[in-house]
């Protein structure tokens, strides 16, 4: 079993209302100095067997078609998680 991580972020040109709200809350709690917050998503896909190029290609395709909406989001990273014993 291995886990593939998919990171999805709102496109830079799309306003991110959630990130903006988080950014506005930080100074209220005393966390100063944060200029901007953008909020995205991380998916952990645990697959059977080894992570081959074919498996990665399939996950990339899933990331582009279901896990993200290319109109408003970018898949910024697809990586294999470090194995934990």
């Amino acid at each position: 079993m291995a886990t593939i991580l998919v990171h999805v972020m709102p496109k830079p040109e799309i306003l991110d209302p959630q990130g903006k709200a988080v950014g506005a809350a930080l100074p209220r709690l005393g966390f100063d100095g944060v200029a901007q917050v953008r909020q995205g998503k991380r998916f952990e896909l645990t697959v059977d067997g080894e992570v081959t190029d074919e498996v990665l290609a399939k996950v990339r395709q899933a990331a582009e078609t279901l896990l993200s909406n290319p109109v408003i989001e970018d898949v910024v990273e697809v990586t294999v998680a470090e194995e934990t014993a």
Partner: protein
Amino acid sequence: MTARIGVVTFPGTLDDRDATRAVRLAGAEAVPLWHNDGDLKDVDAVVLPGGFSYGDYLRAGAIARFAPIMEKVVDGANGGLPVLGICNGFQVLTEVHLLPGSMIKNEHLHFICRDQTLRVENAETSWTSEYRDGEEIVIPLKNQDGQYVSDDYTLDMLEAEGRVAFRYVGWNPNGSRRDIAGITNERGNVVGLMPHPEHAVEAGFGPDSRESGRTGTDGLAFFTSAIKNLLATA
């Protein structure tokens, strides 16, 4: 002949009963369609109602797009079947690429519920032909993810082709690009909008009108438009 209009229910759909009622009040037969159905039961038109299909997990409308019934809706729409997507139904239509753009969280982050004034910008679609171009109507609006976004190229194309079907008037309630409340496809048979025409179809239950409280029925003409067009081509 009586027109038969299908109303799709996904898990998490909320407004299917109101949509069904609107279809009946407009004079058509309402046909319930289930997300898992593999056929459209020979309906003449389809309404995708509002709600939170599949809990709106992932993104609004993202999972509903892959429901078995949607394959048939897409086939039908590409063949000219009139399809109306309301609120979550509009989000499903963008996710399935029958309409361009997408909806993100309201700019002000609040859930909003109000009687909203819209201007009909295109009175030639399957669902708007009983309105006049430029007519202002009031129907309820209620959503959290209602901010219509698209790139400038697509927005310019929609404007140039007259595919902006409705625009917010007076106040843009969610930050939508160019005050867009609803759009249509090239052919005019697929229409999607965030506000809810099915909640403004019967005096006593609609928005306030100029005359008196709760008497607004401005949403009814969506359904009578579709019925009239279906009967004209039958």
